[in-house]
């Protein structure tokens, strides 16, 4: 089949989709979620290079398996290619990136500029984060900014979108069309406050949230119960963070060194008891997906497979969350075919023309 995928602009894959009533963005992720389909998102491991091919190769392994790709903003306070840069590359090729914005590195002036720039490049989804402290990363001597926090950042983006104004009140000529996201961590203290904090994020503008790694399903279930009781599941799409653990040793390391990730002993015991720990880690991830997808109010999963990105397709496939649906995938389109038909010869012809020859043939 040539062209004509469901969520694609017929005029070009890099262009925004037609606006739909009730939608605030012109992106694919919002369409998938609002149609009530189970969404799958993932995270691109940002390269430490200036080569665009690195980004494209890393995005390619997700083709046809995910609805959106998170472009992380120096996650863990480690320096990588910026989220704006990754988004610029991905939108060119028609992918649906989720641009992460962390408050650690930029003040409100830089952030509002990036929101406009990202939206102009065709980024439809933005995820507002506080960001890890600089002590966690490779450059602990950096100055932490934290001018806004995730909540005021969400509100800033919402004001820009809905009121068409900067935080200062100055008018925008064209407001950005965005689907706003936030992060939740139901597994860190104060546990009673966490559902209310989601409510605050919704009040500030969050339309979807992605959770921290979920390894403790019973704990997540109690959280969701509270969230449903408060009525937040009708106002916000909740995507559960999942991911494969490479081994029991990694799990232990993550537990003691990465703040905010809660891994219960039972998980570590299960990994330790396995013959092939890597395979067991993947199976554990699939089992967790199968459990959380049944919880009412869960709209999708966010698969974070850091340095195991090749497993994302297998995990999504084996858990069967897509139910046969195929997310958007780059395919040969009608116009690509036209270009190929007319210009294919340049790949094969071996003509080296000098300017002198060109002048001669012109006469």
């Amino acid at each position, binding site marked *: 089949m040539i062209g004509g995928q469901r969520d694609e602009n017929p005029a070009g894959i890099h262009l925004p989709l037609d606006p739909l009533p009730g939608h605030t963005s012109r992106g694919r992720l919002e369409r998938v979620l609002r149609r009530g389909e189970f969404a799958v998102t993932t995270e691109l491991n940002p390269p430490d290079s200036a080569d665009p091919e690195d980004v494209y190769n890393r995005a390619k392994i997700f083709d046809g398996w995910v609805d959106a790709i998170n472009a992380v903003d120096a996650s863990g306070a480690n320096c990588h290619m910026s989220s704006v840069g990754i988004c610029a590359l991905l939108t060119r090729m028609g992918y649906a990136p989720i641009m992460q914005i962390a408050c650690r590195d930029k003040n409100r002036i830089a952030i509002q500029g990036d929101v406009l720039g990202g939206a102009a490049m065709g980024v439809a989804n933005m995820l507002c984060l*506080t960001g890890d402290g600089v*002590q966690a990363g490779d450059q602990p001597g950096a100055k932490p900014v934290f001018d806004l926090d995730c909540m005021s950042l969400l509100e800033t983006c919402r004001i820009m979108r809905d009121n068409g104004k900067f935080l200062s009140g100055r008018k925008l000529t064209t407001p950005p069309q965005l689907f706003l996201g936030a992060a939740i961590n139901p597994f860190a203290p*104060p546990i009673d406050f966490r559902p209310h904090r989601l409510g605050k994020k919704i009040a500030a503008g969050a339309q979807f949230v992605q959770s921290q790694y979920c390894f403790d399903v019973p704990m997540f279930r109690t959280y969701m119960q509270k969230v449903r009781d408060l009525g937040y599941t009708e106002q916000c799409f909740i995507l559960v963070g999942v991911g494969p653990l490479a081994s029991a040793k990694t799990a232990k390391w993550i537990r003691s060194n990465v*703040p905010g990730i809660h891994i219960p002993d039972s998980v570590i015991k299960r990994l330790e008891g396995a013959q092939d720990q890597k395979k067991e880690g993947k199976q554990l991830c699939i089992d967790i997906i199968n459990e959380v997808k049944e919880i009412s109010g869960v709209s999708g999963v966010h698969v974070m497979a850091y340095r195991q990105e090749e497993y994302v397709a297998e995990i999504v496939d084996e858990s069967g969350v897509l139910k046969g649906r195929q997310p958007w995938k780059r395919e040969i389109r009608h116009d690509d075919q036209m270009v190929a038909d007319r210009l294919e010869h340049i790949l094969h012809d071996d003509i080296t023309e000098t300017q002198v020859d060109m002048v001669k043939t012109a006469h």
Partner: protein
Amino acid sequence: MSETQPAVTQATLVKKAAPKSDYKPADVSPQRRVQRSFAVRLWSVRHSRLLEWFYARFADMFLLLHPLWKGLGYGRVEGPVKFVEKRVKGFMFDCRMCGQCILSSTGMSCPMNCPKQLRNGPCGGVRANGNCEVEPDMPCVWVKAWEGSQNMVHSDRILTVQKPVDQSLRETSAWLRVTAQAAAAREAAAAAKNGAANTGASA
């Protein structure tokens, strides 16, 4: 009771607590951090209800003194009031003088002591024991804020979304600013009432 235990000196404590990097959050050296005490700050959070009651009276009193502040000039009293406010709140809450105090909405736990200066709730990095991700020995400001707010009469104030900090108000007196605003609001309300009464009389 006379078991011989290895002597724990200050140096051992510092060595144990010192991070492996040179990073010093909030300019506090490892030596200072070990000696630092959060006792007063935590006392304030535990007695948040009492302090809430006290502050309400105190704010009323400040508002009563509005003619005095106005007579002397708000600009002129700023210095002395700030001097007192900085010391009192510095002792009670480890106040950082952001100039836009929201202690009543945060369970009497000052959010500017959070290394990320979050004003809307805890980040996702809170440790399982309720301590801070950045400063492992400090109880998370927001875990304490939630505890404190639940003791207070206005326990739902913690749920309002706070605006970003206006950095231009740093090192100014929040007491005087709140009083001036309250007085202005009161005058505006009185003017509106008078206006309404006048239009009512003329009609």
